[in-house]
């Protein structure tokens, strides 16, 4: 990370978070020097990119290959009615640039695959999971492990959100949790506020990783049960035979 100096404007814009005892001016400088990948600009990615931008992350790389559809609008709040038919990357960049013009934005209309994943995420400090399928999550998990980049896994279903921060070499990885690809469920139910809550927590994890504050999820999978307003924690063990991170692989 190159350390970039803060301007007088930065100090005012981020004043309320600089006041966090464990963040401070130094933490803010780290955020400004950081590059974060937002993989997918759906329900999760719309929220995470907004809060990463307002937190003053220096550079955001937004990756999504899709165009905005009417049925996205109950949750993907960066995309508005007028944006239907536009690339999500274009729609998101327009709004994020207005929310915080001091953040450098890089939009890529691309599908993440085994061939391009490493060149897409190399050099970044954190990768935010905003995918809608297990296949691409597995690709990101593997590449993040090999490049040593923290991968913040998030997923939603209905009124339920899931969160697990994967720190290569320290925590279990996504394939320790989900060893084989499950059947993909398309057109799943979701209330927009659920990805919002989940992605909000995802950003808390990203800011902690970048600034060194607090602790991330460790070996826990956090389950947000919106239907009964409870948080469940599941302990995930590192799988010694995990094909990605196992010591016996």
């Amino acid at each position: 990370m190159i350390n970039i100096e803060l301007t007088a404007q930065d100090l005012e814009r981020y004043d309320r978070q600089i006041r966090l005892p464990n963040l401070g001016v130094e933490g803010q400088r780290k955020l400004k020097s950081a590059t974060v990948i937002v993989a997918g600009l759906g329900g999760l990615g719309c929220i995470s990119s907004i809060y990463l931008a307002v937190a003053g992350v220096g550079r955001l790389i937004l990756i999504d290959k899709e165009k905005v559809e009417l049925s996205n609008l109950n949750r993907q709040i960066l995309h508005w009615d007028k944006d239907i038919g536009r690339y999500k990357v274009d729609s998101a960049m327009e709004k994020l640039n207005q929310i915080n013009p001091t953040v450098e934005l890089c939009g890529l209309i691309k599908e993440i695959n085994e061939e391009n994943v490493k060149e897409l995420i190399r050099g970044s400090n954190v990768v935010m999971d905003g995918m809608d399928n297990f296949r691409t999550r597995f690709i990101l998990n593997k590449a993040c492990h090999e490049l040593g980049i923290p991968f913040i896994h998030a997923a939603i279903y209905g009124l339920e959100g899931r969160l697990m921060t994967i720190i290569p070499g320290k925590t279990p990885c996504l394939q320790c949790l989900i060893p084989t690809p499950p059947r993909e469920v398309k057109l799943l139910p979701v209330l927009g506020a659920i990805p919002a809550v989940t992605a909000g927590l995802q950003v808390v994890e990203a800011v902690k990783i970048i600034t060194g504050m607090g602790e991330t999820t460790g070996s826990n999978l956090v389950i947000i049960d919106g239907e009964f307003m409870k948080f469940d924690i599941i302990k995930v063990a590192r799988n010694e035979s995990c094909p990605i991170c196992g010591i016996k692989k």
Partner: protein
Amino acid sequence: MNVKVRAYATIRDVIGASVNVTLQEGADVERLLDELVKLYGKSFSERILDERGELLPYVKLLVNGRDVDFLKGLRTTLKDGDEVALFPPVGGGGFERGAGLRAAQELDFLVEILSYALIEHPSFDRKETYFASSEAS
């Protein structure tokens, strides 16, 4: 004895958020799952078990908050008042691949027709057909 089963995500869609099951003293997790399969059929079993009747590797099953992978797996013995939680994996959150609202409505319409046609057939499973057709689109 009675055990309480709590279900999440796609399993909750099938059996509800929680269900009390009465079992014989000394029954294990496998017996409990047998009982749930009897009650909820294929839509439950296909979300939990592989073709050999083993727990799918990506389904987390906890007894009183402890993963059975660290206990005795399906052979973990239950006792009265135990709480068993079933967590299937969850994969949503991002952009939707391909199918938009119209495609979804068309599929739903197709599935409706199919369900009327097949409703008498005992092995017909609406969800299975729905996901299979939407994946193929």
